[in-house]
């Protein structure tokens, strides 16, 4: 690992000014992804600002909105009693990600900021537009079994690796971001972005900005929910495809539906059209199959990942079926 300067900040304003002044400075929270990337030479910041002392580790329910500090660890969030009772989909998504050791250290903000695990991004001898813009995409025409089927571009077909984020986008979370001017709030669905011609940008956070908390409105989606993660081994592996499904069912009729997928796009992939189709319909197999068909409009395989074109709709149907059966 190339050496660097190390500073600690215990106040948000100071943390922001330290990073905005210095183009080669970056924040470090849990570091479980950043340190890995630095060891492999994928990234080499000259200055690290340690934000672990920032007072952003609270979980509070205020006026029917759950406030989650950006420095809350993944395990603390998954084990929180309010989260387990009122947002069990989020708890389940969190528990599906990484290992117990990593979840103890990885933070909510850091989970959102983690980079893709595309092999070409990690291998510094290979072309990658995300790591080094303009060098090309090794995965298109290369090894792309893990790669995206939605929202791809000619520059990049990488996927966002998070499970937590798939749960959060399904739950209509909001992201609160601090900058020199104060705070701004954006919807979780607009936080991550598609690669387009600038795949080096994973999200819409600007230089000198910091995620400070998430806000999730309470809902009636805590009974019929499921997070299905399909992967190469039964635990501790990234998703081939994952599905977050939550239904509000009243007398057999779907009043509200939330669906999102992981492992299929450059961002957590919300399935709004499929949700809209399900609303007002009977919660049964044929409607679940139709919703899965609608969800797959526009999907495109790249060879090795063509199996996802079948795996994804099957996973949607399975997740909805399990969610319905939970009542």
């Amino acid at each position, binding site marked *: 690992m190339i050496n660097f300067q*190390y500073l600690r900040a215990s106040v948000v304003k100071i943390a922001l000014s330290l990073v905005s002044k210095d183009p080669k400075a970056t924040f470090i929270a849990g570091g479980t992804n950043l340190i890995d990337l630095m060891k492999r030479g994928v990234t080499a910041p000259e200055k690290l600002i340690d934000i672990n002392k920032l007072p952003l580790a609270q979980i509070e329910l205020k006026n029917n909105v759950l406030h989650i500090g950006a420095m809350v660890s993944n395990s603390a969030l998954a084990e929180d009693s309010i989260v387990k009772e009122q947002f069990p989909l989020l708890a389940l998504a969190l528990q599906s990600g990484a290992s*117990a*050791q990593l979840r103890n250290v990885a933070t909510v903000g850091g989970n959102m900021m983690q980079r893709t695990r595309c092999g070409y991004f990690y291998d510094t001898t290979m072309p990658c537009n995300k790591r080094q813009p303009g060098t090309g995409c090794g995965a298109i025409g290369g090894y792309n079994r893990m790669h995206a089927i939605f929202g791809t571009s000619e520059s990049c077909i990488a996927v966002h690796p998070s499970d937590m984020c798939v749960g959060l986008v399904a739950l209509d979370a909001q992201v609160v971001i601090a900058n020199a001017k104060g705070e701004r709030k954006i919807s979780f669905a607009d936080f991550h972005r598609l690669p387009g011609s600038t795949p080096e940008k994973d999200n819409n956070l600007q230089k000198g900005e910091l995620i400070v908390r998430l806000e999730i409105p309470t809902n009636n989606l805590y009974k019929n929910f499921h997070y299905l993660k399909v992967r190469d081994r039964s635990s501790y592996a990234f998703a081939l495809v994952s599905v977050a499904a939550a239904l509000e069912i009243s007398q057999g009729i779907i009043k509200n539906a939330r669906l999102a997928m992981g492992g299929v796009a450059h961002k957590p992939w919300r399935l709004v059209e499929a949700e809209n189709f399900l609303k007002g319909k009977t919660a049964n197999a044929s409607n679940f199959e139709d919703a899965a068909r609608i969800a797959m409009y526009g999907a495109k395989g790249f060879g090795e990942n063509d199996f996802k074109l079948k795996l994804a709709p099957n996973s949607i149907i399975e997740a909805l079926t399990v969610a319905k059966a939970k009542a």
Partner: protein
Amino acid sequence: MLNNDIRQSLLLFKPTMAELDNNQSGDTRRDFLKKSSLFTALSLTPLTVLKAAEGKVDERFAELFEKIPLNLKVNNKPYVLKVEPRATLLDLLREQLHLTGTKKGCDHGQCGACTVHVDGKRVNSCLSLAVMNEGKSITTIEGLAKGDELHPMQAAFIKHDGFQCGYCTPGQIMSAVACVREGHANSKEEIREYMSGNICRCGAYPNIVDAIQEVKEKGTAI
């Protein structure tokens, strides 16, 4: 200045062939490995960096070599240390404190061999910068036994033959203790899920699960 230091340390650490053959220096295998890895580290340091540091041409390079003060406890013993920012907690434990029970497996957070407890929580010490552990209390495998009395989890691993080569064992045991303390050892399935961050290439998993289940079911405070 710095180049002289480096030259001296190279002379100091470079074993002669005679020493290697006869081991007249009384070196252990570990000493030799350490010296040869230091050799490698120095030879990999870019010349420009060494020159800049020597002539103080660029203050920024010099700063990079600056060590940062670090206070922490390891196995209840307080330490006042100085570390490079890039040193991981794992390297600090093994190389500076000579607590070599904690193992370096993949060095990328994928195998769990480096698992230690930080303020009571299990973490991968290979993915934690040492300087990020200021004021923290670390427990390593060396800190589990009470003198000659093994920790119940250590005893259970021996009883159930929870290892073959033993390389992953310190990490497995640290993770297993945490797994029981967290309350995630209520069934074989739950143990397997919550121990998935520790890889055993010998495949001792069934015996590891048995050991953990026995400690959990005995119910003694661990």
